[in-house]
């Protein structure tokens, strides 16, 4: 545009603001958040981090009788391609390091289910000197009590997690860069400080 002096001028508003507005427009126009949440809901792939004896029931949950693959959850091998950790029972001091490392290896958005009483607060082994509480290591979205929980209970936990995700837990981290409603706990001590490998 030309102004009265004939100089060319380009009118630029606040770039950040307009970018923000464009993003909101995209999100609202394409309903991107809904799409992302829908996709994540039915694609919760748990990682193969078998931590304790609840793993028996974890395996049975994906067995033919209970078949958790119906919900789109497929146990996967490598943390880079998964988005769900199922903590299967007790976490020992040695395993705490593996749990934390696996959690950090997983890409956002990621979720966690704590299975079994031991994962809640120690369970039968509440006074053991070799266990840690999983919620001190990673943020847990859904707790499943039981020792061990029945496969139905774990399937229910997956459905419960799907409900949480559907409320916008996945899209808000991706699209709006917001933090998850459950923040990652700050470690008081490094669980891997002794790691010799």
């Amino acid at each position: 545009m030309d102004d009265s002096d004939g100089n060319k001028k380009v009118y630029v508003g606040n770039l950040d603001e307009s970018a923000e507005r464009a993003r909101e427009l995209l999100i609202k126009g394409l309903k991107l958040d809904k799409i992302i949440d829908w996709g994540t809901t039915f694609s919760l792939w748990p990682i193969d981090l078998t931590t304790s004896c609840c793993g028996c029931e974890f395996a049975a949950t994906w067995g033919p009788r209970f078949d958790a693959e119906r919900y789109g959850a497929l146990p996967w091998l490598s943390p880079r391609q998964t988005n769900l950790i199922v903590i299967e029972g007790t976490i020992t001091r040695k395993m705490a390091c593996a749990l934390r490392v696996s959690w950090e290896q997983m890409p956002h958005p990621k979720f966690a289910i704590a299975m079994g009483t031991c994962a809640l607060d120690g369970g039968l082994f509440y006074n053991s000197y070799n266990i840690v509480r999983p919620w001190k290591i990673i943020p847990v979205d859904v707790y499943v009590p039981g020792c061990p929980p029945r496969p139905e209970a774990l399937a229910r936990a997956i459905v419960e997690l799907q409900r949480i995700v559907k409320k916008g837990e996945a899209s808000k981290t991706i699209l709006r860069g917001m933090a998850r409603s459950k923040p990652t706990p700050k470690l008081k001590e490094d669980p891997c400080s002794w790691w010799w490998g």
Partner: protein
Amino acid sequence: MAYISIWTLTRDVISTVFWGIVKLIFWPPIYQFVIIPGLVAALVVVISIIWFERKAAARVQMRYGPLEVSPKLAGYLQLFADLIRYSFQEIIIPRTADIIPFITSPFFALLLSLLPLAVIPVSPVKWTWPLTLSAMRYSVLIAAALTTLSPIFIVAMGWASNNRFSTIGSMRESFLITAYELSAIIGIFSVVATVHSFDFTNIVNFQGGGKWLGLINPIALLAAFIATLISTSAFPFEISDAENEIVAGPFTEYSGLMYGVNMGTAYIKRWAMSVLIVLAFLGGWRPYIPPPNAGYIAGYLVPSLIVSAKAVVVMALMSFLRAVYGRYRIDQALHISWKYVFALAIAGFGLGILEGYLL
């Protein structure tokens, strides 16, 4: 003074644009590389095949498989959900990785595994051929050469990841490349010996009247089939990304969309090989013969759909083996491919020569 009617002008413009778009779509390089049997068809087929693979395996294993995502469609949308999840997940690039090959190799591998589809005929009508007439005479040769390009990038992926499991995986992949390629190419070339032509059109035309080369020369078909299984890491040869041994092999460090691309690459390669096998052994578009001056639909769309439908059947068969077999060890796979599959391919080639002499 001549004046131009607005109406005529508009009509002309619209028709030009419309036919321009149609021409562009049905322009052989674009049509074959992007639409059928290229990218779009491949994606649809891959999604359906993975769904089929999961459902069929579940059927054998006394369960449902993916269901809750769309109970009315028997969980068909499951793969879309996975695709969306992968596409929007964080992409992690490890600090120790070699960044440029790490990022570019998956896409090169994907594109190069599609390339063979851009040089093959899917219809006998002359204008649909993607290459010039003189080049078309060597289409088998060109397609076979192009199938050998993409594995190099899988090796590069494993090397660039700088992960121990990836390194082992890419080492296995490089062993397997040498093992299957010869068998696959000799297997497909045995039809050349029978038909006396490097031209896919001649080969398909030769197979008229139910005289499929797969029936005439089953040995070569078997060799090509097994070699395809090895090349696309299908069971029982899922070795380079054997999950229980080396996590995800070359793809261990890939996350988000990049892994989605990687996962697609193996299936797309299987798709390309299936199309080649259909053309070489299973009669191509053959029960249907388009009229010599056929248009877009009768001359291009219909035969390409027939080829695709046959290829889907071949691919489904390959995928179903997952439910039945475990996986071989790398040295056993090499042993099998050099000692038996290679011998099978040579025997098929010999049989092809003999039949070419007799028929």
